[in-house]
């Protein structure tokens, strides 16, 4: 989507005096990224004139929020708890307002195969896939099941944990001999593995933000990792990946990518902000890969790049989102 279709947040959105809490950290593989996102959020909010307090999602969180209630919470937690809906369900129970998608929608987006099913059913394109737990391979024989997968989905394949972010555990398998080992290392991240057809093309990330006038797509970020693979290292090591904002695609493709991201946001029932990852194949088709309900907000993350490319200030956008949610308790 281009700048002309996005609505700029007002310079002064009237959020001064808001008591905000930024949640980051957590107890999973993405803790480091989350701490980095949280720091960035607090700095950006400070720039927008809003003091925010950082908290970890640990045993002190609920007593802390009860003793010193926040007007709204910003969830900069990545990975399980922060993104799978669990923490949001607890915040709902506690009557704590927060920015972002509701618990049920998060649970759906967190389950990548389930999210793909919903997105495909809504008419969008997504690479073919199959998601199976370890027990299926054990019970039916891994060789027979893998053989079927390869025969059906072809090669190369993308092997990834069925949930989780930051590309941890994601592998591209080009030769069938590599597949069993890839399955073993992927299952170390979780009990269900998703195997997806590989689509060659341009990887793009489309951020969506809803500042009160419905979800709007921000300019797509094109990802060009030097190594060719956008893995964890390529994501979080400055200089290892080239980003192009807006993506170097035709206006038609850019519009369809923007439309896809908004469609995903709406179909999954997401709120406030999300980031859809997609591949543009050489024929111009935009293939949905996955959606993130708590997009990375670190210095090398794509959501902040998109916000900047749209001509917005990240701190202003985040402050607006907080101000909109302040005082609104979800049931």
């Amino acid at each position, binding site marked *: 989507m281009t700048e002309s279709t996005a609505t700029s947040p007002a310079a002064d959105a009237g959020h001064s005096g808001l008591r905000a809490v930024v949640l980051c950290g957590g107890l999973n*593989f993405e803790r480091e990224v989350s701490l980095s996102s949280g720091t960035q959020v607090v700095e950006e909010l400070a720039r927008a004139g809003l003091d925010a307090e950082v908290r970890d999602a640990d045993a002190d969180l609920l007593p802390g929020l009860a003793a010193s209630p926040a007007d709204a919470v910003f969830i900069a937690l990545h990975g399980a708890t922060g993104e799978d809906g669990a923490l949001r369900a607890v915040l709902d129970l506690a009557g704590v307002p927060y920015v972002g998608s509701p618990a049920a929608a998060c649970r759906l987006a967190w389950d990548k195969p389930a999210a793909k099913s919903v997105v495909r059913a809504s008419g969008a394109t997504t690479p073919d896939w199959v998601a199976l737990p370890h027990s299926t391979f054990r019970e039916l024989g891994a060789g027979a099941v893998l053989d079927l997968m390869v025969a059906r989905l072809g090669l190369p394949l993308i092997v990834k944990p069925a949930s989780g972010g930051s590309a941890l555990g994601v592998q591209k398998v080009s030769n069938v001999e590599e597949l069993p080992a890839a399955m073993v290392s992927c299952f170390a991240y979780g009990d269900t593995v998703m195997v997806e057809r590989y689509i060659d093309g341009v990887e793009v990330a489309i951020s969506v933000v809803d500042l009160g006038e419905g979800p709007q797509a921000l300019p797509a970020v094109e990802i060009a990792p030097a190594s060719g693979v956008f893995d964890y290292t390529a994501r979080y090591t400055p200089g290892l990946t080239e980003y192009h904002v807006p993506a170097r695609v035709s206006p038609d493709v850019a519009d369809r990518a923007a439309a896809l991201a908004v469609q995903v946001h709406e179909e999954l029932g997401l709120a406030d902000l999300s980031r859809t990852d997609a591949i543009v194949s050489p024929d111009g088709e935009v293939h949905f890969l996955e959606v993130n309900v708590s997009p990375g907000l670190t210095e090398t993350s794509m959501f902040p790049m998109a916000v900047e490319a749209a001509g917005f200030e990240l701190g202003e956008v985040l402050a607006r989102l907080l101000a909109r949610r302040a005082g609104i308790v979800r049931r």
Partner: protein
Amino acid sequence: MKTSEIRALFSVVSRPEVVSLAGGMPAVTALPLDAVGSMIGDLVSGMGAQTLQYGSGQGDPRLRERICDVMALEGITDASPSEVVVTVGSQQGLDLVTRVFCDPDDVILAEGPSYVGALGVFQAAEARVRHIAMDDDGLIPEALEEALAECRANGDRVKFLYTVPNFHNPAGVTLSEPRRQAIMTIAERYDLLIVEDNPYGLLGFDHEPMRALRARDPHRVIYLGSFSKTFSPGLRVGWVLAPLAVREKLVLATEAQVLCPPSLTQYAVARYLDTQPWREQIKLFTELYRERRDATLESLASLMPAGTTWTRPDGGFYVWLKLPHGLDAKLMQPRAVNAHVAYVPGIGFYADGSGREYMRLSYCYPEPDQIREGVRRLARVIEAELDLHSTFDGVDTGAFRTARPAPGHEAEEMVGPANSDTYEDGRA
């Protein structure tokens, strides 16, 4: 998995929910903290003019005298304070020695596995590391001789042997007395310089400290010492004992790096050695580590699945564990972090990418109960990984029907029950 991913996994380790058998942090809370605190306070209030001032590049003379007393406990009785250079931990000492001796492409011999911090220094110097095999008695002399002969035949410039002879990090083993003699004989024969890194030598559980390699040859051995394990790693005080000609170069190098080691911490160590019962404190440390070592070995013996083996250290901080056949400690790590237990994958202790089937377990920091819980979690992780391997290891991909990449096949052409709620014939 790359370094940055490992760092990501490790960011969880600091949380109290996770039992960390990963870090090698000494149990500093076992120190008499009040006494150390008032001692340091006195150093500032009573001697601020010296302790808060620049000092000598070589280090405080009084501390260097006391360092000689400490080294005497391991048989080094001929050391002169003039041969001692105080460094910011022995890590800086190793860096200085490597800078002085090594050019890019030089060869350094080191045990396999070897201390990860040393490998980092050698890599920064662009030196090549050749690992020498070890067993329960430490470095194998025959393997050392074989490596030296091969290097000589290849025309490789071998600059020194880097060794941790006591309670090795990460292997936990100690170089036996006969092997010490054999290695010195080989060094003589091949005119080999030895860098002896000895941070753990005074932390033995079962016997008196062994005689250092340096005690056997003052000209062929450069000795690295540290107060990190016997007193405090936070003070960052270590040293190098080197022949005078080398010492000169080390002092020039350290002045270029840090001007002088921190005065306050040097005075703190010297005062601690002068006024506190430091030998008794070391005994207290070793009793504490012995109890933790026992908890580790007992838990491993009762919980680890068949095919897992490990070393039995009689001092120091570490157990080196070998996983059952086919398992990879690095690939298994996400599962371990999920299970809230942390270790260091063995691959980090090799310069050549080997060691995947090993891990280092540190027992120095967690309490015995935590250690038992950590080993329990680790055993479950290994069992789950074995289960996974039993599913996938026997797969014969050669028997698969032909599969080629299928570019141009659009997703819609391949909708199937596996990934859609619509059948191919259109039924819902």
